[in-house]
């Protein structure tokens, strides 16, 4: 089963200089932190805070492509984790005129059937980094899903990765 998540915040990781996207479910029971690069973190923060840049950024360009070509984004799904890397996918809906799916119908046939505009919506899946997928989902207002499997696995694996990054001095300030 897939669980819908919302982007709660983008925070800076003082250890690595990277940014962490915090995803939460609606009941605030599940929390999924994903480490992303600086540029990707900014792209997500801009969308989250509704900041518009004077020039379209790269994710805005991708949105423009999808809008112009009329290929709607249905949802994004964070579907697996390997080591410390999360994998996501874009789920797009492509509508192709039925005629073009047939093997090169000759023009006469196409002209004879002007009413034959039956369309076949088809789901396209494209592999993406979660950061790009989330940046796009926020811009297009589509839901972000995560598989239960990822939520189950993230606990252990992600915590290990995080613990490895810790340095002794990170503990200091909180000593009493």
């Amino acid at each position, binding site marked *: 089963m897939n669980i819908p998540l919302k982007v709660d915040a983008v925070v800076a990781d003082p250890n690595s200089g990277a940014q962490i996207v915090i995803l939460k479910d609606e009941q605030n029971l599940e929390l999924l932190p994903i480490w992303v690069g*600086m*540029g*990707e973190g900014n*792209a997500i923060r801009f969308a989250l805070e509704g900041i518009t840049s004077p*020039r*379209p950024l*790269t*994710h805005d*360009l*991708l949105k*423009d*492509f*999808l809008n*112009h*070509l009329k*290929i709607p984004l249905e949802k994004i799904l964070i579907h697996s984790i390997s080591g410390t*890397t999360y994998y996501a996918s*874009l789920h*797009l809906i*492509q509508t*192709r*005129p039925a005629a*073009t799916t047939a093997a090169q119908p000759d023009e006469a046939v196409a002209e004879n059937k002007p009413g034959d505009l039956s369309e076949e919506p088809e789901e*396209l*899946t*494209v*592999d*993406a*980094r979660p950061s*790009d997928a989330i940046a796009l989902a926020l811009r297009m207002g589509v839901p972000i899903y995560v598989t239960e499997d990822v939520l189950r696995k993230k606990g252990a694996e992600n915590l290990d990765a995080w613990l490895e990054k810790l340095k002794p001095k990170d503990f200091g300030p909180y000593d009493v």
Partner: protein
Amino acid sequence: MLVQMKVRGLMFDPYNNAYIIILRGEENTDVLPIWVGRPEANAISLALEGIFTPRPMTHDLIKSVLDTADAKIISIVVTELKENTYLSKIHLTYQDSEFTIDSRPSDAIALALRADVPIFVAEEAIKKPSSEELDRWLENLRPEDFGKYDT
């Protein structure tokens, strides 16, 4: 009129803390420097050097979306210089129709290199070097900055 250009170099501009993409025409007469940000320079540099990243970067994702949908980029055109900002357009075909999409030159060039399509520059976008910025930049040039991507 359009002039076909190639990316001939990519360098750091310490004065503006930005990167400069050097486009040059086939006859080596016209040179167009375009200032871009660091992530965009990085995206272009990965494509120029043919570096494969384990996960798709943002421009790879755009290319992969277009490939999956069977849309093809035909060319990109740097169309004009407006208030010190270059504007460009990406031309593509999809389901027997042509589309034109506005873009920053950096994104357009990053995509052109990945899709292996020609980069055109409108003549009116090629300004004679006059700005202070360009002078400073020229002073900064070293011979080895040129030619790296010449074939």
